[in-house]
């Protein structure tokens, strides 16, 4: 993956920045130029809470290139308190013990690396929210 392609997404991947539509107040993640809810074109940058519940998930057993060392790992869709739904890995737990509805919280983690000498791509992953 090219460096600019990753660099461009840093506000979302590192800081969970989203775009709150000034017209209908819906929070879009990733932020967009046009609100899919109302067609609005002005947004306020907000930071997502990072807290939510597991909506559905899978355990990847056959991984794409670059993720082979991590199998089996869980990827799921998380319903955040902010009304946003996003996809991410769920880590720091035995994936076979996960259940839909589990409370999760976002953490800053390494997601990918481009080989031995390439850039390391960080971003959000989710872990069980044990309330600490």
């Amino acid at each position, binding site marked *: 993956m090219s460096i600019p*392609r990753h660099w461009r*997404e840093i506000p979302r991947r590192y800081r969970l920045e989203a775009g709150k539509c000034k017209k209908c107040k819906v929070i879009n993640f*990733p932020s967009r130029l046009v609100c*899919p809810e109302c067609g609005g074109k002005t947004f306020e940058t907000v930071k997502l809470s990072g807290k939510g519940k597991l*909506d*559905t*998930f*899978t*355990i*990847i*057993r*056959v*991984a*794409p*290139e*670059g*993720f082979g060392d*991590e199998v089996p*790992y869980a*990827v*799921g*869709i998380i319903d955040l308190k902010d009304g946003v*739904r*996003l*996809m*991410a*890995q769920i880590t720091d737990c035995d994936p076979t013990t996960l259940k*839909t509805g589990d409370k999760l919280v976002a953490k800053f983690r390494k*997601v*990918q690396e481009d080989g031995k000498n390439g850039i390391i*791509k960080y*971003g959000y992953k989710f872990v069980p929210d044990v309330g600490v």
Partner: protein
Amino acid sequence: MRDVAIVGVGLMKWGELWEKSIRDLCVEAALSCFEDAGNDKIDSIVVGTMASGLLTGQEHMANMVPDYLGKKHVPAMRVESACCSGSQAVRTAFMEVASGMSDCVLALGVEKMTDVSGNDATYALATASDQEFEAFHGVTFPGLYAMMARKHMEQYGTTREQLAEVSSKNHRNGSLNPHAQYPFPMTREQVMNSTLVADPLRLMDCSPITDGAAAVLLVPATDAKKYKKHGMVVISGVGHATDTIALCQRKDMLKMEAVTLAAKAALKMAGKTIKDVNFAEVHDCFTIAEIMIMEALGIVKPGQGGPATLKGLTALEGKFPVNPSGGLKSKGHPVGATGVAQICEAVYQLRGEAGKRQVKNAKVGLTQNMGGTGGTSVVHILEAK
């Protein structure tokens, strides 16, 4: 708009065709289509391929095809909508003929997938998902459909056995199809005991990696009698709709709204309802997809796809046969070719040329092709006239 007929179809045996290049596949399917039609004079070509560049290094297939088909100077274009590219080619050819712009258009779908490693093919397929917000996190296509499967199982009580019956039923049909990549039966137990790929989906829930091409020839219905004497088949309805590219952004991921909207538009154009349809070829890229598509098309109510499949509703001899060809699972899934091959199967069925897998009294057929996790869908209604 003019009425449009299909006067030629061309297929080949699909599989891991290491001795054939992407250009060979295109030419073989097109020649077989010309042979079927008894005509090779064409005004225009539309090529559907998802990822010829990533999979073979060759873009500009819209130039390659006319050149190697001996049709230098004939206008040609390429269309792409991931795994829905094939039916986009048919839809585009339909619009060209219906509008009066062209009188004889070849719609061709192709994918050459086995020249690259499994990893590279997985990468190419994953480009149909949202690269930055899905693929970035290490999710695969089986993984995305697995999330839908888990939700369907939890919400509706769909069982592993019901999912397995989709695969088993399609393999039964595919075992009767000479073009199929895997023409052999597969029991539910074999499906349920196959390797886990992405829980709860197993290897035999997934369509394979395939090399193949398919072609159809479209003309104004008033010209159809000039071509070879097959039973006449017309495209009476075409529908197309899109949805969000990322699965997580759908309000209800089990609904497949693009499928419902495309079907509604196609049926409306044909002046039909789903009850008038005798059989369907649908996009069973994963077993759960066929169940969700049955529900989105209105063949059954939401949540009833699994039980209805297990009861035999969609079997070849059932009340509403689905995927008489064997579907993507048994016939193979060369992504850009799939949508065109679905049309070929509907034509064989409507002409009464489907041999041992012939659906009885097939007069109206529906084809449903899909891109991504349901972000694109095209539906065609075909009728025997």
